[in-house]
C-alpha cells in the first residue's frame, strides 16, 4: 500500500480543518472601512424638541465616543448601565445617535433608563448611519482629538469590553492628544 493513496484523505482533512476554523469566526465582526478616516460631516436634529442635536463640529477637539442606539434595540439595554456609569464618572464625553427611531420613543427611552449623553441627535433615515457604515445597533465609534474615527465597537459595550478594549484605547488616545 503506497502512502499516496492517503493523499485525498489528507486533502479532505485539511479542507475540513480549514472550514472548521472558519466557522469559529464571527461573521458580524466586520473591520470598519472608516477606521483612521475623519468623521463625516453631519448635523443631526435633536431627539427632544427643546434641545439641540449635534454636528461633527461638536465632537471635534477631544477624545469622545459616539454611540448608536435606539429604543427598539434590545442589546442597547445591556450596555446602558455601563454608559450611565461612564457619564456619572465624566470619564469621556458620550454623544448619542438615536437611529431609525421615533423621536418620542427615543426621548421616552432616555427618560426611563437615564440619559448618559452630552448631546443626542436623531437619525431617522440612516443618513449618518450609512455615512458611518453602521450595520446594527448598538455600535460605538471612538473618535480621537483630531476628529478621526479610531475604532468601531460592534455590539454592546459591556464592562468587559470597556475594560479590555475601549478604556485602554481611550487612554492611549488621550496620551496622543496630550503629547
Amino acid at each position, binding site marked *: 500500500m503506497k502512502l499516496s493513496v492517503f493523499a485525498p484523505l489528507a486533502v479532505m482533512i485539511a479542507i475540513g480543518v480549514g472550514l472548521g476554523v472558519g466557522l469559529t469566526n464571527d461573521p458580524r465582526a466586520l473591520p470598519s472601512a472608516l477606521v483612521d478616516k475623519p468623521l463625516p460631516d453631519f448635523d443631526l436634529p435633536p431627539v427632544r424638541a427643546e434641545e439641540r442635536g449635534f454636528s461633527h463640529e461638536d465632537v471635534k477637539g477631544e477624545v469622545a465616543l459616539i454611540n448608536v442606539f435606539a429604543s427598539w434595540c434590545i442589546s442597547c439595554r445591556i450596555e446602558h448601565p455601563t454608559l450611565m456609569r461612564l457619564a456619572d464618572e465624566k470619564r469621556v464625553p458620550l454623544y448619542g445617535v438615536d437611529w431609525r427611531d421615533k423621536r418620542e420613543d427615543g426621548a421616552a427611552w432616555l427618560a426611563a433608563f437615564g440619559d448618559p449623553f452630552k448631546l443626542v441627535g436623531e437619525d431617522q433615515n*440612516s443618513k449618518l448611519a450609512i455615512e458611518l457604515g453602521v450595520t446594527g445597533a448598538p455600535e460605538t465609534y471612538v473618535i480621537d482629538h483630531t476628529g478621526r474615527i479610531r475604532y468601531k465597537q460592534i455590539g454592546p459595550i459591556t464592562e468587559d469590553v470597556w475594560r479590555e478594549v475601549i478604556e485602554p484605547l481611550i487612554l492611549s488616545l488621550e496620551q496622543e492628544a496630550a503629547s
Partner: protein
Amino acid sequence: MRGNLLGAIVIVLAALLSLDAGAVLPDEVLPNPVLEARARAISKELRCVVCQNQSIDDSSAPLARDMRILVRERLVAGDSDSQVKAYLVERYGNFVLLRPPVQADTLLLWLGPAIFLLTAFGGFAFYLRKSKNQLTITAPPPLSDEEDALLKRAIEDQA
C-alpha cells in the same frame, strides 16, 4: 384531466413571467424608469449588511430600505453606477458587494474552484494512464500444464 394540465401550465407560466419586485416599496420607486432600472440592478449587487446573505433589493430590513433610497438619491444626483457602489464600499468595505472584486486577497476565492477542477482532472488523467500501463505490463501468465488439464476435464464434463 386535460383542463387540470392546462391550468397547471397557466399557473407555472404566470409564476415565471411575473415581475420580480424584490423588497422595493412603491414609495421608493423613481419616476424615471431608466434610473429605476439602474437602481434595481445596483441594489441586486449590494449586500444588506444587517441580514448579510440577501441583497438590499431583496431585503425588507429597515437599513436595506434606507440604502435603496440612498442608491436612488445618488443616481438622481448624477452618479454613475460604479460611483454609487464606490460610495458604499468606502463606508462598508468590499463586504457590501455581493460579488467581491478580483484583487490580491480574493484571488484564492476566484481561482479556487478552477484550481480544484484542474487538480481533479489531472488526478483522474494520471489514474487512467497508470491503470492502462498496468494492464499491458501485468498481462496474466499463460496457464500451466496442470491448469490446462483441469480446464480440459471441466469442458469434457460439461459435454
